[in-house]
């Protein structure tokens, strides 16, 4: 739909790191048995990826898959393809007990970019950001709301939260990234 808008319509803020709301992102929740052949085949079909290892991401030309729990994956794709891709997966899953749900609209996506990106997160999440590896996904809390994040580039972290708390999370990240707040502990 042309009238679809993300929660904060691309708001951004420049502190000692840059905070940006990333607009609409296609996201599909898959639940099922990771060893099930149909599940694996479907995942490959819709994302070009294999099941990622524990707390990791897999990438292909056509998409990214994020490990969410032992029976849940998150497939990232273009926003306008998400519904079609979901329906494709649902069709594949007809003969097995698995689930595919389009959750693109339920989320907001942010990035933090810059040298201090890890420190911005370390102010809000009880996670060892100095040891946080590239390609690792962590589900935790950001201050008072659930969040998932991963290192999407050398100096960039991508954060996924629920859409209803997009404003709260943006304000949190702004506060944490405000100039003068550099900690100098993680580098």
């Amino acid at each position: 739909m042309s009238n679809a808008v993300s929660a904060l319509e691309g708001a951004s803020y420049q502190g000692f790191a840059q905070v940006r709301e990333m607009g609409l992102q296609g996201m599909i929740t898959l639940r099922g048995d990771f060893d099930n052949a149909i599940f694996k085949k479907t995942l490959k079909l819709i994302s070009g990826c294999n099941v990622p290892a524990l707390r990791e991401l897999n990438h292909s030309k056509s998409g990214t898959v994020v490990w969410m729990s032992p029976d849940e994956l998150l497939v990232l794709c273009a926003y306008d393809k998400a519904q079609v891709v979901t329906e494709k997966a649902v069709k594949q899953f007809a003969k097995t007990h698995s689930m595919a749900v389009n959750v693109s609209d339920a989320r907001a996506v942010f990035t933090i970019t810059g040298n201090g990106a890890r420190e911005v997160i370390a102010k809000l999440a009880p996670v060892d950001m100095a040891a946080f590896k590239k390609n690792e996904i962590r589900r935790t809390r950001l201050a008072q709301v659930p969040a998932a994040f991963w290192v999407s580039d050398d100096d960039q972290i991508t954060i996924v939260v629920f859409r209803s708390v997009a404003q709260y999370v943006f304000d949190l990240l702004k506060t944490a990234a405000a100039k003068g707040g550099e900690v100098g502990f993680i580098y």
Partner: protein
Amino acid sequence: MLIFECPYCGVKAEETELHAGGEAHLTRHGAGASDDDLKSYLFMRKNPKGVHFERWQHANGCGKWFHAARCTMTLEVFGTYSAQTFEPPAELVKKIKKKRPDWEGWT
């Protein structure tokens, strides 16, 4: 602030990421249960000074429930294990017995 390793996602999670769920390995008594069974299911809980088996959920995380064996006195965590079991793994019981020779054992 306590930390537990989630057996499902491997994260060493601190308490703010977890939700405590009370005593583990309760037996559900539903329709047709005797008054005594219902009472023990709904209300009677162990409150030991020492080894305790309990339920935790990795709420701000992978969302999975798991079991933990913990000393209520020293707060030592002997181990965490799957929620989908009726009793603690034998290996864990053995480990606790070794660390706490006076422990009356798993029942």
